[in-house]
Every structure is written in structure tokens, then in C-alpha cells.
């Protein structure tokens, strides 16, 4: 067949045109490289906006509730939380799982989307990674303070000590310690490595502007970055390795968090569907939070050219996909409870939907199963306000999911004589409410002092970076 001559080809081939699937434009209006640098650095270099001070003040005030709650707890004892037999785990672990879950979008965006070469990640990955780290900080508050005598929190780690005690490595709670601390460490590394070239840009710009203090501080953390070819080549390799290292973390962290429940014997917890179900839920809640944060940021700083409708579409679709997986998991739990024919299991799920906590269950279902279905519609995805409101519902729903799983199962366990009803104490409410302030304080500091998008990588996805043209004239 190799000897077929050109003339022998059927004439029809001349008329066949390859199908054109244009790639979505990731930076709109054909913005130049310097426009991107000025835009991102301008946020930091400009005068602190008044709204920032107002938000910062409110965030600090809200954060003080956590400080107050925790101070009271340490001064008094863990009894100030509303846990009592049979519900010995409640808001503390609900809030822990809630915050840890939120972080997952950051890791997914930075690791898996990087390996899958999803270039739209570049506009949102920096802020999502920051969100991950701050969410881990908020999450860590709860288990650490639940140990009561906080100064012994280091007992969580296998450090030889005069008590001759050793951690119980058969306990998923101990696995959690390693999963979460690894996750936190890798997330910080990933975030920081990505920041280095941008910090160097800020160092140079502040030096040119004659601001010695800030150029020194940015320079300190830029670690002598000069943007040489060797620097970039090492940077790309380090980034790729970290993406590889974090990829299993996206799946492992929430899998292990789900083991806290799945490894126990309590009906409603003891199910094999928990790991995938928790991971999907975590990514779902994480993208909910990314949307909640990025949409106002986009509006305030006029970043519409960098976070385009395409980016919002992508995030909405991931939210839709993971939200639907979560909805499937809810349905499957009921199916297995019926199919498994275990009376305790069956009772637990009927009780979940129609028992004392039915109100929480139906909030969860409406927020987590119904809310994302709106994202099927293009009109909804294009209505930024609507997307933002729906993303809030996602956050609310995912908090209720953890509440429903944890509290309903414990409140109605095997022994009817010990059944109870749990309500949080005011101290718990304060502590949880305040973590939104802690998170906001950190996030506001981040957008004020660090570049919210990776400049170099954004430039690489602009139309003008494509030196080969768009191949229209290929034939």
C-alpha cells in the first residue's frame, strides 16, 4: 500500500475538511503579558481599599469568637462542648470534616488538573491552594482542642516519651493525624513553590519603586529567583514532582477521614461506600467554596478577562458531577440498607430521613442533591449571582451532610435505653462561627499581600504565547 500514488487517492478526500474544535480562550481580549503582570501586581501595589479594611475588621471580630470559645474551653475543660452520651462526637468532628473537605478542591486543582493538563486551572489554582491551607488550619483547630489538655497534643505523634505510651496505629484517628499533617505540608510546599517566581516579580517591582522594606521581604521568600533557564527547568520539575506527590493525597486524605466512621461498627457509619462518597463530597464542597471566594474576587478586582465564563462553566460542571455522585451515594446507602436486610442498618436510614433529625437530613438533600442540578442549565451558569448563591447552598449542604452522618447514627445506636438528642452548646457555636472569621482573615491577608494568580503560567496560556499560531492554515 505504500506505493499508492497521489493521483490514485479518491477525489472525495480533497473535499474533506478536518473538524474544528476551537480551544476555549483562557485569557480574554488578547491581553498582553505586561497587562497581566500589571493587573496582578497592581492588586498588591495599590492602596489598601476601604472595603478591605471593613472586611478585615469584621473578619477579625468574627475570628475573636473562636478565640473566646477556645480560651473558655482550655480554661474549663472539654465538658463545655455539648457532647454527652451517646453523642460523644458531634460538632467538633463535623466541623473538622467540613473544613478538611473544603481544602480538597485546592489539591485537586493543583495536582490532578495539572497532570491532566487542564490549563484553565491556572487562573484559580493559587487562590484555591491558599484556600486549602487556610481550611486545613481551621480544620486542625477542632481535633487539637478536642484533646482537652492542648499542651499534650503532641501525644498524637509517635514521639518517645516518659509515659512509655505509644500511639494506637490500628486506629483511623491516628491515620488521620498523618494524613492531615502530610496534606498540610504538601499543600504549603506546592503553594510556596508556585509563588517563588511571582514573589521575585514583586521584589523587582518594589525595588524599582524604591520600597526597600517590601522588596527585601518579597526577596527573602523569592530565594534568589532570577528567572534563568535553569531556574525554570528546576521549577517545572519540582512542580511536576509535587503534583505527582499530591495526586494520591486528593484521594487518600478524605478516604482516611471517612475511615474514622467506616472502620467503626455503628450502623450508618459502617459502610464500604464511604471513601469514594467522602472524596466526591469533599471535592464538591471544595469547588463550592472556590466559587464562593472567586466570584466576588473576580467582580471586585475586575478579573473577568482572567476568570472567564469558561472557567466558571468548568467549575460548575465539576460541582455538578461531584454533587451528582454524592446524590447517588445517598441513594445507594438506602438501597444497601434495604438490600442488606440488617434491621439495625435499615432502622438507621429510616430514622435519618424521618426521625428526630429529619430536618437536617432534608436540608442536606435539598442543598446537595437538588442545588447542583441547576448547573445543567447554561443560563444558570452564566448568571454569576445565581452561581454564587448556589455555591453557598453547596457549602451549607455539605456541613449538614457531616452533621447528619455523625449525629443521627450516634443519637440512635444499638441500645434504645441510651438514645439521646444532641444540641450544641453556645461554646461550640461560637468556636465554629469564629472559624469563618479565621479563614477570612487569612484569605484577606493573602489577597492583599500575595499574587492571587500565577502570572507566568497565565502568560503561557494566553493566545499570544501560542507561537505556532492556531493551525487554521495547516493545509
Amino acid at each position, binding site marked *: 500500500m505504500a506505493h499508492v500514488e497521489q493521483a490514485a487517492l479518491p477525489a472525495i478526500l480533497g473535499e474533506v475538511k478536518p473538524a474544528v474544535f476551537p480551544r476555549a480562550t483562557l485569557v480574554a481580549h488578547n491581553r498582553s503579558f505586561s497587562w497581566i503582570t500589571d493587573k496582578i501586581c497592581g492588586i498588591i501595589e495599590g492602596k489598601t481599599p476601604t472595603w478591605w479594611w471593613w472586611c478585615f475588621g469584621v473578619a477579625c471580630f468574627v475570628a475573636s469568637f473562636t478565640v473566646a470559645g477556645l480560651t473558655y474551653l482550655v480554661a474549663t475543660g472539654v465538658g463545655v462542648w455539648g457532647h454527652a452520651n451517646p453523642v460523644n462526637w458531634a460538632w467538633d468532628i463535623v466541623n473538622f470534616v467540613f473544613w478538611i473537605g473544603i481544602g480538597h478542591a485546592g489539591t485537586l486543582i493543583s495536582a490532578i488538573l495539572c497532570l491532566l493538563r487542564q490549563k484553565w486551572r491556572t487562573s484559580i489554582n493559587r487562590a484555591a491552594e491558599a484556600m486549602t491551607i487556610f481550611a486545613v488550619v481551621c480544620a486542625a483547630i477542632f481535633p487539637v482542642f478536642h484533646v482537652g489538655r492542648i499542651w499534650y497534643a503532641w501525644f498524637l505523634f509517635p514521639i518517645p*516519651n*516518659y*509515659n*512509655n*505510651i505509644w500511639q494506637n496505629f490500628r486506629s483511623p484517628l491516628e491515620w488521620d493525624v498523618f494524613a492531615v499533617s502530610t496534606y498540610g505540608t504538601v499543600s504549603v510546599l506546592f503553594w510556596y513553590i508556585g509563588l517563588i517566581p511571582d514573589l521575585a516579580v514583586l*521584589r*523587582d517591582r518594589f*525595588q*524599582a519603586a524604591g520600597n526597600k522594606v517590601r*522588596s*527585601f521581604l518579597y*526577596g527573602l521568600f523569592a*530565594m*534568589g529567583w532570577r528567572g534563568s533557564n535553569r531556574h525554570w527547568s528546576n521549577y517545572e520539575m519540582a512542580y511536576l514532582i509535587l503534583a505527582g506527590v499530591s495526586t494520591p493525597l486528593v484521594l487518600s486524605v478524605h478516604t482516611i477521614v471517612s475511615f474514622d466512621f467506616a472502620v467503626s461498627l455503628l450502623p450508618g457509619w459502617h459502610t464500604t461506600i464511604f471513601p469514594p462518597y467522602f472524596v466526591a463530597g469533599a471535592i464538591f464542597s471544595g469547588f463550592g467554596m472556590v466559587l464562593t471566594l472567586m466570584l466576588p474576587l473576580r467582580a471586585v478586582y475586575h478579573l473577568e478577562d482572567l476568570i472567564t465564563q469558561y472557567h466558571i462553566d468548568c467549575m460548575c460542571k465539576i460541582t455538578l458531577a461531584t454533587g451528582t455522585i454524592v446524590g447517588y451515594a445517598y441513594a445507594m446507602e438506602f438501597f444497601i440498607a434495604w438490600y442488606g436486610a440488617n434491621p439495625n442498618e435499615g432502622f438507621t436510614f429510616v430514622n435519618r430521613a424521618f426521625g428526630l433529625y429529619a430536618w437536617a437530613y432534608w436540608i442536606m438533600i435539598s442543598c446537595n442533591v437538588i442545588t447542583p442540578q441547576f448547573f445543567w442549565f447554561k443560563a444558570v451558569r452564566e448568571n454569576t449571582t445565581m452561581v454564587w448563591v448556589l455555591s453557598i447552598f453547596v457549602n451549607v449542604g455539605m456541613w449538614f451532610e457531616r452533621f447528619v452522618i455523625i449525629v443521627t447514627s450516634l443519637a440512635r445506636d444499638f441500645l434504645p435505653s441510651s438514645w439521646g438528642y444532641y444540641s450544641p452548646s453556645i461554646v461550640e457555636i461560637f468556636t465554629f462561627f469564629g472559624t469563618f472569621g479565621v479563614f477570612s482573615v487569612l484569605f484577606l491577608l493573602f489577597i492583599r499581600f500575595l499574587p492571587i494568580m500565577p502570572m507566568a503560567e497565565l502568560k503561557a496560556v494566553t493566545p499570544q504565547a501560542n507561537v505556532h499560531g492556531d493551525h487554521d492554515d495547516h493545509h
Partner: protein
Amino acid sequence: MSKLFPKSANKLPLQIIVYLVVLAGVVTAGATYYMTPKYTRVGYAPVQPVPYSHALHAGQLGIDCRYCHSNVEKSGVANLPTSQTCMNCHNQVKKDSPLLAVVRHSYETGEAVPWVKVHQTPDYVYFNHAIHVNRGVSCVECHGKINEMEVVTHAQPLSMGFCLDCHRNPAPRVREPGDVFNLDSATIAQKSGLEAAHKFLKDRNIKPPQSCSGCHR
């Protein structure tokens, strides 16, 4: 553009890492030495209201521990003697000694002698004296050679690790029941070998608890 950092700054990250490693080592070593019961508890010998000498009473005179700490075989708490116990002898012996003024005052008024507690287990630890002395654990194992002390001194760390060392491996430390209150006696293992000690544990079904709830009830 002028240089922001001198060339020596290139070594800074390495220097910081080395510094942090050294710092972590020093802090660990310091905390291990200065902040553990071996340092914080051992050697504690507070001034007592009466200069009572165990070396004289228990050592030289050979008064049995249980003459004063009379409930130690029956109770979880090894009681301190009342001043009546002291006065059994001291209404005859050294009855006018100024060193015993506090005891006489207590005897006359009924107010307790304000002894300063030396050995203190935390509130979250359930420690029962009776079960220990009845199962062959001598006073000397935890309190040291009280019979040689002029002033009672904290001789052992009494840390959780100290308890667990014995709970995990009691054989070398147990004594014949008759030797428990003789602080100079040898353990079974020293007298008749470890085999005999294991047999003693087995015959008496001595299984010290190692679970959390054994002591933290």
C-alpha cells in the same frame, strides 16, 4: 538594578536548616532532661513541720511501716498516722522535746499536723496501695530506701513510664509477702532466680493491667 542581598545570602537557606535541626535537637534534649519527672520530681524533699526521721524510727529502731501507716494493706490510701500514734511512745520518750511541740499541739487540740505531701499521684490516676503490697510489691520499689532517709525524699520519678516498666515486666521486682515491709530484703529473683519469680506471679495469678482503664478509670 542594585543587589538586594549579599552573595553570602545564598548560603542562608542551608544555614537556617542547620540552625533549625540543631535547635530542635537542643530543645528535645533539654526538654527530655529538665522537663521530665526524673528531674522535676526526684529529689523533692520539702521541709516538714516535725523533723521526723524515718532513718531513726524505721531504720535504727526497726518499727514496722504498718505501725504508723496502718491501713496500707487494707486501703487504697496509705494513711498518715494520727498524732495519737506518735504519742503512744512520745508521752514517755522525749516527752518535752521542743521538736515535738507541733505533735503535742495536735494531740491536745485535735488539729492535724500539717505534713507536706511528697508523693502525689495525679487525680486522673487510680493507685491502690493495698493491691500492690499484697501482691509482693515492696514499699521500696516506689518510695526508695525510706528506712535510710532523715528527711523523706522523692526517690523515683513515679512517671507513667515508671509504672509501666513494672506493669509490663513485674518478675524482677516482686518479693515474698513476708519481705514486702522489709526495705532491705532481696527480691525473689535475686534470692531464687527469675524462674521462681515467674512461678510466684503465675501461682498468684498476678497480671498487672496494661490497658488505659487499669489506672485511668
